[in-house]
């Protein structure tokens, strides 16, 4: 129960806390911003009746770096690495969204080979992101072992990234117009080897958790949200799909080379934490499917479109969105014809999804708040930007 230095109300809250400790009346406690289960610096003020949650308020912004303001002071190419720092566990997705948005604005199209490389890396990144989510989510609920398994396997993905572009986390793998790097020697073999390696590992995670009684009891019926509420709250990604809405940007408005591949969108029914878990697990398998097809069908050819040295898009604006691991990641870019974007707006999935926390935990218990924060799969770097 730490206090944020910027809070103006915390002292009052704590006093009230003491006063009402014995009655079963309302009780306000503060979780975070330094708390192991908030996945970063998220502060949640909980209004409780005993252990039951009456309402929540999220205090965010502890990690705000003003990415959108930075964009206005950088050229299009210079801003590219900054987007990696938003959702740092899925940096490649961020880069893909940004590059494609600028490409649309420039009216150029990345060559097919570049698109295939993009798909492979983005899907690998989705796997890595889901693995990190699974490990930390399970850890929050008390299962420590999956964390090590997922990190072991995520390591293999990061090794491929490192071999491809030299960076593991904030990769800056794509450039406007395509990819800067041709695949290294043995890239395809590495990816194929990884596919063979990781498929049984996903079964292993499932073995540990899917039928584990305690896991089911901790997650089933927890943090329920209906598809209608999801749409009203703008929640996207696995959370939306777990609530039964069959929608994925990759299918609805295909980008990169996604229209070439045969894959399914896993959909849940109940919209609870358990379904979200199942949906993400199924999504990992679908990602493997996409990667397998992409590696097999990858065409030869150039990897960079003809893009002017100095990127000066014509006056205009564009909204482009992709399916990031967390949900719909959108870029709204306004160009005034100069070398610097006039305005870049990022539509961060974590930020919008986090809003649903209040709806999801109302009437649940305090321990469920932790489970729900985990299941929302937020990255505070993206929430705060």
């Amino acid at each position, binding site marked *: 129960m730490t206090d944020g230095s910027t809070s103006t109300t915390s002292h009052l809250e704590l006093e009230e806390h*003491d006063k009402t*400790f*014995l009655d*079963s009346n309302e009780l306000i406690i503060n979780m975070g911003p330094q708390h192991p289960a908030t996945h970063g610096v998220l502060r949640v003020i909980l209004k409780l009746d005993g252990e039951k949650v009456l309402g929540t308020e999220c205090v965010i912004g502890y990690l705000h770096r003003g990415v959108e303001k930075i964009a206005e002071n950088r050229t299009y190419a210079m801003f590219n690495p900054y987007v990696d720092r938003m959702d740092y566990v899925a940096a490649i997705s961020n880069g893909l969204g940004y590059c494609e948005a600028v490409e649309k604005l420039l009216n150029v199209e990345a060559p097919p080979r570049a698109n295939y490389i993009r798909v492979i890396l983005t899907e690998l990144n989705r796997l890595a992101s889901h693995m990190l989510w699974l490990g930390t989510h399970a850890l929050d609920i008390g299962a420590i072992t999956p964390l090590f398994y997922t990190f072991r396997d995520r390591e293999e993905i990061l090794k491929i990234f490192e071999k491809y572009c030299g960076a593991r986390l904030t990769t800056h793998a794509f450039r406007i117009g395509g990819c800067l790097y041709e695949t290294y020697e043995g890239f395809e073999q590495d990816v194929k080897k990884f596919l063979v390696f990781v498929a049984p590992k996903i079964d292993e995670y499932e073995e540990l958790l899917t039928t584990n009684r305690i896991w089911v009891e901790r997650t089933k019926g927890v943090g329920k949200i209906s598809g209608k509420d999801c749409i009203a709250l703008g929640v996207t990604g696995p959370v939306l799909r777990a609530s039964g809405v069959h929608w994925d940007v990759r299918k609805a408005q295909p980008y990169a080379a996604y229209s070439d591949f045969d894959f399914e969108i896993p959909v849940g029914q109940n919209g609870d934490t358990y379904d979200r878990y199942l949906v993400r697990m199924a999504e990992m398998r679908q990602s493997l499917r996409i990667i397998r097809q992409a590696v097999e069908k990858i065409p030869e050819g150039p990897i960079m479109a003809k893009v002017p040295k100095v990127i000066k898009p014509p006056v205009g604006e564009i909204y482009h969105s992709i399916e990031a691991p967390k949900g719909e990641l959108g870029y709204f870019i306004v160009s005034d014809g100069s070398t610097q974007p006039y305005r870049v707006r990022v539509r961060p999935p974590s930020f919008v999804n986090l809003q649903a926390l209040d709806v999801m935990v109302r009437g649940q218990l305090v321990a469920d708040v932790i489970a729900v924060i985990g299941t929302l799969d937020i990255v505070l770097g993206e929430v705060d930007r």
Partner: protein
Amino acid sequence: MTPIATPFFFYLLSGLALLGGILVITRKNAVHSALALILTLLALAGLYLMLYAPFVAGVQIILYAGGIMVLFLFVIMLVSIERSQKEEQFNKQWIVGFIAAGVLGVLFVLVYVKGRALLPAPAAQIPNESQNTQNVGVLLYREYMFAFEIASLLLLVAIIGAVVMAKKRI
């Protein structure tokens, strides 16, 4: 087998029990009082052991020291103790208290003095230690069955009453 009921242990345990009792009423901090009460209860358990009643001693520890006192502490800890520490310990009722204690003391002495004359000295019969628990069982379930069941019924009523009072809506 050497007897454990040596005077040394008797005086030690009684001393501890008395010390605990005095601490219970003199400590301002309720938690300290409760802890002193636990000391008293444990000393009493030791005294039971000396009377060759190990079962009673064991039950004393489990129920009183381990069960009831934990619940006591539970409640005390949730109550703010700052206020009670500032309060005057000896209020105006101390005269009444002294009178009650005096009457009790006189009664105790009278029973002690007269009782010896009234009742014959009990034969110092050491029960067979290995059968102690079994004997308790036989007494409870054979001879005092009715009283035992009535007591359990009473407790059941008390439990239901407590639940009804504690719960806001049933």
